[in-house]
């Protein structure tokens, strides 16, 4: 299911950084920044810090572009960089670094797996915009905010059954619309 609208080879990316080609650099940013944010968030579990990690990575690429050589797959290179930066930031702030982050080895199998996962998340975020307002609200509270159905029911003054009903509507909608009905996995 890996589908990304933008392909750039390691050589082209390296060349763009060397020559400070802002147009190409912006395309790289537009293509990858959101999934890098999702990946950083996976490690640091903190919105602001995740954004900071992504921004500082791109600022670094732009500033030090003369000395940087990207090899292999550009996306994978960025995934590794953002993971290293996330771990460093957590250590620097004396925050707990999860076993998952430390264990995560940037081998090809895990890279492909995590790419699929992040792209699925991107799709979910995009598709959630299309849910009816109440349904979307309940879905976001349940999934993005991690609230239990009973908590959501209490907060919104509705029955738990309504919460389950709306979550089912949301999940069905996402499944039906994902990749135009193609099978997941």
């Amino acid at each position: 299911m890996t589908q990304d609208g933008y392909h750039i080879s390691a050589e082209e990316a390296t060349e763009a950084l060397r020559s400070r080609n802002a147009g190409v650099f912006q395309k790289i940013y537009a293509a990858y920044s959101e999934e890098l944010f999702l990946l950083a968030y996976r490690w640091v579990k903190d919105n602001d810090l995740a954004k900071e990690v992504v921004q500082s990575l791109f600022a670094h690429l732009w500033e030090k572009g003369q000395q940087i050589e990207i090899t292999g797959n550009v996306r994978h290179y960025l995934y590794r960089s953002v993971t290293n930066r996330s771990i460093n930031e957590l250590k620097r702030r004396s925050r707990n670094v999860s076993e998952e982050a430390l264990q995560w080895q940037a081998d090809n199998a895990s890279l492909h797996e995590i790419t699929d996962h992040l792209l699925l998340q991107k799709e979910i975020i995009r598709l959630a915009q299309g849910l009816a307002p109440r349904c979307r609200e309940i879905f976001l509270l349940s999934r993005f905010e991690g609230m239990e159905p009973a908590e959501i029911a209490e907060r919104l003054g509705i029955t738990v059954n309504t919460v389950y009903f709306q979550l089912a509507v949301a999940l069905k909608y996402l499944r039906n619309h994902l990749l135009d009905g193609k099978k997941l996995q």
Partner: protein
Amino acid sequence: MNNNDITGFIIDCLTDPGNRDKQAALNKWLEESEENQHLYAELKQLWIAAAAIPPMPFNVDEGWQELSEQMAPAARVKRMSPWKIVAAAAVLLFLAAGGWWWQTSGDDWITYATPTGDIDSITLPDSSMIHMKAGTVLAYRKLFKEREVKLLQGEAYFDVVKDPQRQFLVTADKSTVKVLGTAFNVRIESTFTEVIVFEGKISLHSGGKKLVLSSGSGNLATVSRNDDEIRHPIGNYSNQCAWATNDLVFENEEAENVASVLAAHYHLSEVKVVENLRHKRITLRLHNTPQDEALEIFAAVLDQ
């Protein structure tokens, strides 16, 4: 079980993994067919992937803008003009994307525009909710210490969290609505601004005049753009908020009127009422009711 029940059942099992009865029922259902196993695997994958998504969206255009501000000095050395093009492209992009937040520079206002074509909603920092029709633009204080929202264009429904210490202000054109905690609808039209109170009480200020509006009968007021005149017709206009509340209430109303409101709400060309029942008066309350169910209830109440 129909498809909706199954999805609900799976969610029930996913949210309550410790419940043996549910897990046993799930296992039994999974054993029934390979198709069931596929469906379960897909929904579970979605369910888990969605759970790890950060609560605040990442705004690519805003991020790029911030980044390009840092980059600009280095870039200026070599190429001045392309940078202007990039900056302009970034601005256009974020206008076109819509549905995302951006911050006006140097000020504390955050502007939000709905993506085109659909109803949208946001939760403010104080947990108050705003539902917006397509094409609506509004701005709110970033830190929200002062609860202030400017409706710049379109129509919005406000569900305000009670806070006796801090009033909640909505300005729309020349009108200001002050509330402590309530739910109401504000719509900007070319010649007037309209306010409908769905729940609680608000005070409406315009051109030095003030009107207190309560929910129930007499809950609508309009402010004319020409002369700041406040008009306050009789009647209960709560059903005009149904696009946001999904709440339709009819008290002692003629079936014919109820049918036309239902048709509009569910986007149907017509809801039929048999001739001899058109003027029958009915009382009916629908909350978050799916279309089929609503029509069934309507028919049952009407006895047709």
